[in-house]
């Protein structure tokens, strides 16, 4: 039976109300609700809605980020109980992210990290100006499913190619998928350097990641 709390939970995420989301998470625990259900039937529904609303232009980046923050606030409270119950939220996949060597522009990469994380991916964020070797080492260490390389500048886009080549040299692909993004990046460039995918924005990146790992909806 659907608990009326679920509706309030998803609304708190849509509203980007972190305090409210945290309060509802605590209430769920106090009522003895299954924390995993609270996520899957409450908060996560909200983040999916927010992603869709952003995709069709009804929500904007600050709204989407606030939704992701609200999601994070709820998860932080529910996580210890999930661990205790051994009912951890199933991760959709492990994603190593960073900006290409020489590129310190990270707004886009951070957005992708926030949205993917809120949607259930496990994110390993290497930060800015990451070398191909650092990408490969992290991917091997955590058993990454996806490596995402962001580049804003046409001059640093070559770094995306270098990461893909490094992954190939280590024989990590095709098991590890390589995705790229950034203002100057196009699908043509992605094809040229043999990337597994490219997206124009953070919400599209979520769809792309799901598609590559065969998780859930695929946008058409």
């Amino acid at each position, binding site marked *: 039976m659907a608990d009326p709390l679920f509706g309030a939970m998803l609304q708190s995420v849509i509203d*980007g109300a972190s305090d409210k989301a945290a309060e509802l998470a605590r209430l769920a625990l106090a009522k003895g609700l299954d924390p995993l259900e609270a996520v899957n039937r409450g908060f996560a529904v909200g983040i999916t809605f927010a992603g869709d609303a952003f995709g069709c*232009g009804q929500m*904007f*980046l*600050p*709204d989407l*980020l*606030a939704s992701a*923050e609200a999601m994070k606030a709820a998860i932080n409270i529910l996580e210890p109980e999930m661990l205790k119950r051994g009912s951890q939220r199933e991760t959709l996949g492990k994603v190593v992210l960073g900006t290409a060597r020489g590129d310190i522009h*990270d*707004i886009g990469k*951070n*957005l992708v990290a926030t949205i993917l994380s809120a949607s259930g991916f496990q994110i390993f964020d290497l930060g800015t100006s990451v070398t191909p070797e650092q990408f490969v080492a992290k991917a091997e260490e955590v058993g990454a499913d996806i490596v995402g390389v962001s580049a804003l500048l046409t001059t640093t886009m070559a770094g995306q190619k270098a990461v893909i080549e490094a992954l190939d040299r280590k024989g990590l692909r095709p098991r590890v998928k390589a995705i790229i993004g950034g*203002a100057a990046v*196009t*699908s043509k460039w992605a094809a040229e350097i043999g990337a597994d995918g*490219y997206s*124009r*924005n953070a919400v599209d990146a979520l769809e792309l990641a799901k598609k590559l790992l065969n998780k859930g909806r695929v946008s058409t």
Partner: protein
Amino acid sequence: MRPRIQLLSPELIGRILRESFELLMSPGIRVGSAVVELLRAAGVGVHDGVAQIPEALAQQCLASAPREFYLHNRQGEKAVHYGGDDVHFDPGSCCVQMLDPDTLEARPSETRDLVCIVQITEMLPQFAAQSTAVVCNDVPSAIGDLYRLFVVLQHSDKPVVTGSFSAAGLQGMIDLLAADSGSPDKLRQKPRAIFDVCPSPPLNWSEFGSHNLLDLARAGVPAEIVAMPLAGGTAPVTLAGSVTQHAAEVLAGITLHQLAGPGSPVVWGGAPAIFDMRTGGAPMGAVETAMLNMACAEVGKHLGLPTHGYLVATDSKFVDAQAGAESARSATLGALAGINMISGAGMLESLACFSVEKLVIDAESIASACRLARGIEVRSDDTLATAMFAQTGLSGEFLKLKETRALFRREQYLPSALIDRSARGSEPPNDLLTRARTRVAELVTKYQKPTLPEEVLRRFHAIINCEEDRGADGISGGTQHLVD
């Protein structure tokens, strides 16, 4: 600080007004027979249909004209403020041609076109008012003006900028509005529509125009005087000279209007343009046309009157770069001039043809112009940036700040998908016309027709039928089927 553009120095405005008052006396103003008695009673000499209006009388009539007034929506709420520097936009009127959305050819406009224009205008907040934008060529011409208003009132809650095609046509339209408001008194108290009334350049208040002014003043329904000197054609070639002629024509109109109904609302409006020396046309997209509109409004503002202008139109025949450039430029200039009502959006081909695709594009230009006119605002009492930096440090995480989320909608105009700012995807990008068509379809789909009381509808139909029976061309046959 609100950004403004002014083209006239106070000294020049003084000269313009001095000469315009001189023009009222010599060569004087040609007037229709309907107003001769009224003028003579006020001590004005009228000889051979030409009135010599003394400055003192014109000044007295200026003094009785209201400094501001409102148009109301169907619900009776104030929706358009004529006065001060408030800026509003409405679609242009009145075309006889429509750019066919499918063939992109100009064809006679019909009722379905007007309905579509009204639906889109209703959905777009950029338009504070509707206009009776096109002639419905599928109804008898004798009731053409009345029928346009009937269609708009049926499909909209917004105020309406309209006008009649003849001296006789006005009363039916006022009756229609009174039926909409509930009674002639209610219409007077909370007018929903304003009527454009045009003198004929140079310095001629024709039988039709002067008759309309009198009837509107007596009914207490707002009149918008739309004087349209063509610089170099029907007016002096200099912009300053045309502004002077414009002032004389509007001053004469206000005099007739206020003599008939002192205190009745009236607007210092116009559709001035330059005269194109190649084509002999009136290029509405020319920058000098925009300058004339701005300068004429400036004179009106100097006198403390509500203002109107005719901008956001183009001379191009297509929804193309010329159309976008000319319309966006004049929308911007009009907004910065603080003109109260700016008509013309959606118009192509120097006001000969209407396009709904252009209308939705113009709406984006209008929104940007209004954003510009709002200027750079200071939001917080404490700091401009340092308080936000106190939270972010050097992390650069401004997107996550509460302030960002609270203020971005106010700081930025958020355009519809018509304005393409997205990164290149794998699909080929759509051109502007394609995006405009998508936007039109989206707005028409979301539009909901207002529900009018049965009694009001019944009275509408009675008025239409009565006027149709009076129609001179004798074409009968119900018009009711044309609009559901």
